[in-house]
């Protein structure tokens, strides 16, 4: 009897071991496809906004990885942190804590192909959960190099 009960416990123990091995680095991420199309912004549109002297400027936040941001990022964009991790999300919440909910915010990452980005949907969801109503997500199909830098849009380097 005792032996049978132990046998029934094995699958749960096995599943627990598997899950605990995965660790935070391999956690499932929410796909970028979950972001409504209406809230996406094309790189060309943001580049035009940056060029325009009269257009109101949104707050541009980078929610990806530091080493990529340091190599090249959008002028005046602020590095927040990788929103796919709890630490990055906390930094994002802290950064926007004192802003009014109708602040125009553009978030971007560009670390990986759109469907594989671990950060962008998490950042979008967090801002929405906080009540922000003017959030746009820069649609970077492949990566920041291909879809921004190589198209000749403005970049700056450094931390």
């Amino acid at each position, binding site marked *: 009897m005792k032996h049978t009960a132990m046998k029934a416990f094995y699958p749960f123990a096995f599943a627990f071991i598997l899950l605990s*091995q995965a*660790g*935070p*680095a*391999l956690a499932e*991420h929410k796909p970028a496809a979950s972001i409504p199309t209406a809230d996406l912004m094309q790189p060309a549109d943001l580049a035009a906004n940056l060029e325009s002297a009269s257009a109101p400027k949104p707050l541009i936040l980078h929610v990806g*990885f*530091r*080493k*990529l941001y*340091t*190599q*090249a990022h959008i002028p005046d964009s602020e590095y927040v942190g*990788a929103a*796919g991790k709890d630490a990055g999300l906390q930094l994002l919440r802290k950064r926007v804590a004192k802003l009014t909910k109708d602040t125009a915010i553009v978030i971007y990452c*560009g*670390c*990986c*192909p759109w469907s*594989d980005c*671990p*950060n962008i949907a998490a950042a979008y969801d967090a801002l929405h959960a906080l009540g922000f109503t003017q959030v746009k997500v820069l649609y970077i199909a*492949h*990566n*920041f*190099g*291909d879809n921004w*830098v190589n198209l000749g849009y403005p970049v700056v*380097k450094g931390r």
Partner: protein
Amino acid sequence: MMAGVRVILVALCLATPTLSIASSPSFASDGTLRVAPDFTRTDLKGKTLSLRSYRGKLVLLNFWATWCGPCLSEMPRFAAWQNTYGAAGLQIVGVSMDDDAAPVKRVYAKYHLNYPVVMGDAQLGESFGGVLGLPLIYLIDPDGRVVGRYQGEADLKQLESQIKSMLRRS
């Protein structure tokens, strides 16, 4: 007189750049990388790794990170290739763009990687023309010339064919 000529000849020799691939400009006029820039880093096992020390081998340089899903799906294949083609002259080198080494070490163990992995940084990325998205792979011939660049999830079948073809030639 002869001594003077000798001095001039020695000076000329010293001033003339050595005729090697390494002396060529790294980037072509269209911005593509021609020669892989050398770098020296300590790998995850604590050994010093210099890219230049792999001259004579075909090098697959893989920029990756633990947060990059496509990178992780490629890596078991790279480990298999290192087993299959290592003796024929293939050397895979991983460069992680993670912010810290702890998750990289976990993935290294989990995936049983059999090739060296070093931690990259922005400076190293810039020396390769910018690592502005992952995965990114460079194929570097035995003379240090860049013969392939694969941005994004690579067509591994095509890449393997190219590797086999290059190994046959070398």
